[in-house]
């Protein structure tokens, strides 16, 4: 319970007691209500990831430098409702006019409720899903499909993670 709530409760009890005391045997009631609404808070351990160059014959899937992204999802939700974490790419990976499909990025995961997947620029893809309120943690290791067919360049994209608590 927050400091404001505790203070509120204490003042209400004090005011009630002070005003009601002279009434002797007379009793009164006060209804307390706590308004707890849905809330979502997402924390990622990295704001950027990089994939180094590698020989496609040696490293078919390049893991991102720095290892997996640590993800913490805090949510308040209605009972039995689904809390969902999704990710979507802003676009394909681009280097000037050259592109590599967003689907070249896949991921593996650890942690309850997390699931592996393939990135899309069209549709948010589920990274994790849970039922009800709670604090959940896991990791997501991004991988880059390494093909000979890519034109040389430095490719960039932006991933948007969204935690939804209905």
């Amino acid at each position, binding site marked *: 319970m927050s400091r404001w709530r505790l203070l509120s409760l204490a*003042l209400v009890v004090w005011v009630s007691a002070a005003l009601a005391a002279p009434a002797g045997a007379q009793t009164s009631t006060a209804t307390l209500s706590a308004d707890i609404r849905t809330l979502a808070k997402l924390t990622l351990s990295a704001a950027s990831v990089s994939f180094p160059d590698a020989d496609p014959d040696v490293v078919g899937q390049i893991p991102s430098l720095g290892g997996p992204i640590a993800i913490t999802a805090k949510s308040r939700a209605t009972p039995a409702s689904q809390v969902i974490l999704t990710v979507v790419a802003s676009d394909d990976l681009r280097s000037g006019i050259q592109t590599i499909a967003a689907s070249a990025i896949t991921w593996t995961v650890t942690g309850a409720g997390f699931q592996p997947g393939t990135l899309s620029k069209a549709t948010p893809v589920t990274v994790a899903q849970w039922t009800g309120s709670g604090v959940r943690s896991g990791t997501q290791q991004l991988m880059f499909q390494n093909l000979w067919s890519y*034109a040389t360049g430095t490719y960039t994209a*932006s991933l948007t993670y969204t935690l939804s608590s209905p």
Partner: protein
Amino acid sequence: MIKAVWTGAVAAAAILLLSSPVSAQQTDTKTVSVNATVNARAKLTLGSAAITFADADPDVTPTLTATAFSVDVKARTTAAGTVSLTVSAPNFTSGSDSIPIGNLQWTATGTAFATPGTMSTSAISAGSWTGSGNQAGTHTYTLANSWAYNTGSYGTTITYTLTAP
């Protein structure tokens, strides 16, 4: 009774005034920027490191033919970059005797592999492609079988060079 009503009213007012608002936020978003580096790279794989021509009667077999071998080209370059494959070899030698390397020719299969070709002591094109990718082909070498050759076991080394700018 009035006191009770006032007490309830004050309590309700206190709740309204002192209760902190609870956030109604339902979603939270974060962004991660992704960076992938793709450098120029070239890889050439030959299906054989040695080819052999067996001796034969020049009247019966005027051209000696070796077994075909694979030539696999893999390259990463710019979108408009030219990937080139060249070959060269010095003349055949056997002691002080020699056979001109121009007597060695090849035929090739595979998209954009140069065919036919005649070997030279200077680099000549065996194939050229635009952009990154894999190219699979074969080379089959033939050697003109001339009565003019001195006897001997002749050898040379063919150098393949793949370039991806």
